[in-house]
């Protein structure tokens, strides 16, 4: 029923909540919402609500990058956020989102990881981004990605002295070099929309997530959905995504 109505509207370039096809829901970004985290941000896109917290921990570097800090991104589909979420290990969808966000940040060289080395080969800062979904009303990828970058920009590096982290004193800000912004473009029938909400996501044929850097470079893509896309689709979707990313970046 509802699905059919969404499709009917789309044929007329209309959406349930009156938005244009290329229009986001209202976006709110609040940084520094978790005092005890080294960095944090809460992002709301419409009713979708997500908190990103960044913790800095001492880690052993990977053997092949002995002078670089580490990055780990994790998402929790907290059961408070949706009737279908249940406690337990991350689902396939949660894992995909965490990896898409992680790759967007990693591949864009967003963080200057070499600045996070303390003792080469032995001790480096580990940057842990934890995403906590508070309410899920669609488009978790864009919200997660935006919250992560906002939280990184908000992150301070604590003092490290005598093998202890002093979390009340800071030596500086996390060196953030780039701000990749993720915008998912969804295809339904022959229409392209951005920021599909939960109901729309259920009728999406295929989507393309594109992360664009402030210098216009694309740094990560992921196709989703059960239908195929043509090169023409993809060209259009990259264009639209890059265009919208500029709009979203203003919220940082």
């Amino acid at each position, binding site marked *: 029923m509802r699905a059919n109505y969404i499709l009917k509207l789309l044929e007329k370039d209309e959406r349930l909540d009156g938005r244009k096809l290329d229009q986001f829901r209202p976006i709110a970004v609040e940084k520094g919402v*978790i*005092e*005890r*985290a080294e960095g*944090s941000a809460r992002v709301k896109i419409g*009713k979708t*609500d997500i*908190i990103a*917290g*960044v*913790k800095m*921990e001492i880690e052993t570097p990977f053997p092949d990058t002995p002078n670089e800090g580490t990055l780990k991104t*994790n998402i*929790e589909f*907290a*059961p*408070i*956020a*949706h*009737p279908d979420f249940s*406690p337990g290990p*991350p689902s396939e969808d949660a894992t995909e989102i965490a990896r898409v966000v992680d790759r967007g940040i990693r591949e864009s060289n967003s963080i200057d990881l070499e600045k996070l080395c303390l003792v080469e080969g032995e001790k480096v800062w580990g940057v*842990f981004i*934890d995403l*906590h979904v*508070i*309410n*899920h*009303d669609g488009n978790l990828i864009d919200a997660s990605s935006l919250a992560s970058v906002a939280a990184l920009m908000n992150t301070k590096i604590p003092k490290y002295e005598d093998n202890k*982290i002093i*979390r009340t004193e800071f030596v500086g800000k996390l060196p953030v070099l780039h701000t990749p912004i993720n915008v998912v473009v969804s295809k339904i029938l022959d229409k392209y929309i951005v920021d599909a909400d939960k109901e729309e996501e259920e009728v999406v044929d295929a989507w393309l997530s594109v992360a664009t850097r402030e210098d216009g470079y694309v740094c990560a893509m992921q196709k989703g959905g059960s239908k195929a896309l043509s090169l023409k689709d993809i060209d259009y979707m990259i264009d639209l995504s890059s265009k919208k990313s500029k709009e979203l970046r203003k919220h940082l």
Partner: protein
Amino acid sequence: MAKIKGIELIKDGKRLDGRKPFETREVEMKVGIIPNANGSAMVRFGKTTAIAAVYGPRLLLPKHLQEMDKAIIQCRYNMAPFSTDERIKPGTSRRELEISKVVRLALEPVLFLENYPKTTIDVYVEIIQADGSTRVTSVNAASLALADAGIPMKDLVVALSGGKINGQLILDLNGIEDNNSEADVPMAFMPNKKHITLLQMDGELKHEEISKLINEMFKAGEIIYKKQIEALKNRYSE
């Protein structure tokens, strides 16, 4: 969570954050913050922040878990990885498992479970930031979320913590007090009849100190009760 040797937590009758012994931290309560949930609430005591959501009563599956004559409560208390100084790895610790149980038991006496056979009432609490007294903050949030979900309750459930530092009984322990206290007593109760639904104690207390603390918690609970009522009113006057 080490005890700091010889730390002076109270001086000239004032605690490190300036509070008097029986003064609680700033308390903030907000109802209806999660659109998807049947009921939800955020409760903050100082920096300690809990978000609770209630889903249900809904049919419990798989079937063999159903109780034929009443609803069950499924409760999960979970700390966000970024809620404390050191990152918490995802997954349920023994501490979280135990707190999930005591929070559930703190709520059970106020519900009419026999009204909803074969169903589950799911109560999920996320600690978004932790600075002591997380389990009682959780109970307050869950109490509001249940009320917000429209589930009939005999009474609300009010919770707070008491304890003892440097020989002085106090209320509403923050993180540093919690770690260095001589005793820590989380409690939850139904405010109208003063019926206690959660009571734990760790540390060293004489029996009469316990009784005195409970009475002080009853008193301070009145204020928390009013905040709960107010938060519920705000929800419906929005």
